[in-house]
């Protein structure tokens, strides 16, 4: 079913334009990479704050308010540019295991982001007293950053995973 949807999508005028205008894909990929820069750096800054290595003057709530909105706006740009890239190459992307793994990892990373955001709003004081030095939070912070890295790796792999039908 996914394959027939992908085949249908590749025949649409939108897909044809993306396939035939040579500069669209590199341009959209560039925007995609710039948005990745925003997302990865926002996550990295929150991690540095959790480890007390940057932004020590700010509370965890202020840190979340500074970087989490950029993360979501970055993800919106990634979704729009990603959808454009999929439209240009639906069969190679949608049915690609690297793409499917990427989407699963992305769901996990988004769930962590939402729960982090909620927890900081709800327990602002606790985050600035006990939680910051907690080992499990530090492990989760590094783990989440590694998941975001893995999402980028899986994204790069879409172009290299050869599919045969």
């Amino acid at each position: 079913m996914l394959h027939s949807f992908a085949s249908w999508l590749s025949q649409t005028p939108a897909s044809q334009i993306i396939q035939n205008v040579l500069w669209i894909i590199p341009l959209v990929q560039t925007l995609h990479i710039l948005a990745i820069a925003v997302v990865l750096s926002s996550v990295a800054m929150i991690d540095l704050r959790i480890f007390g290595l940057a932004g020590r003057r700010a509370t965890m709530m202020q840190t979340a308010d500074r970087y989490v909105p950029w993360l979501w706006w970055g993800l919106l740009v990634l979704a729009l540019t990603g959808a454009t890239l999929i439209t240009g190459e639906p069969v190679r992307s949608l049915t690609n295991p690297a793409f499917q793994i990427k989407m699963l990892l992305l769901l996990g990373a988004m769930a962590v982001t939402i729960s982090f955001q909620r927890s900081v709003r709800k327990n602002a004081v606790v985050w600035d007293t006990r939680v910051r030095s907690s080992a499990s939070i530090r492990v989760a912070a590094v783990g989440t950053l590694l998941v975001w890295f893995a999402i980028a790796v899986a994204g790069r792999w879409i172009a290299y995973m050869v599919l045969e039908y």
Partner: protein
Amino acid sequence: MQSFFEWLESWPLSVGLRESSWMFPAFESVHVIAIALVVGSIMIVDLRVLGLASRSERVTELSQTVLPWTWGAFAVALISGFCMFASKAHAYFGNTSFQIKMLLMAAAFVNMLAFHFIPYRSVSSWDEGASAPPLARLACGVSLTLWVFIVVMGRWIGFSIEG
């Protein structure tokens, strides 16, 4: 120069990057993640100096805590980039997008030095609040623009490289 490039291309790592099915995407992935961290962290500092974000933080403190990570990520980008260059040195060296990217990076380096040695010397007077002098703002605007185009050119290399 030609023999130097041939020597680079004969490295076992270069041969591996050309022949292996997974090595090139692995190096590209590391390169993209490193560049994302370089560009993102530079944006954070530039936007702070421009007064567009992190206004409650001191410019000095933000740059002292963020920029060491920028340099660390830059080292990773440089090494992974050099390895990819070595695998097809002739092709990259003759590639227009690659040449423009290197020139833009040289310009970003000069801009960084100019920022550091001219407006940043008086940083104590604009460390807090959104009151950086025009020269400091200019350098940070130039930096943001250059890094965007460095990413543009980097992506274009992949579409124009031959061989």
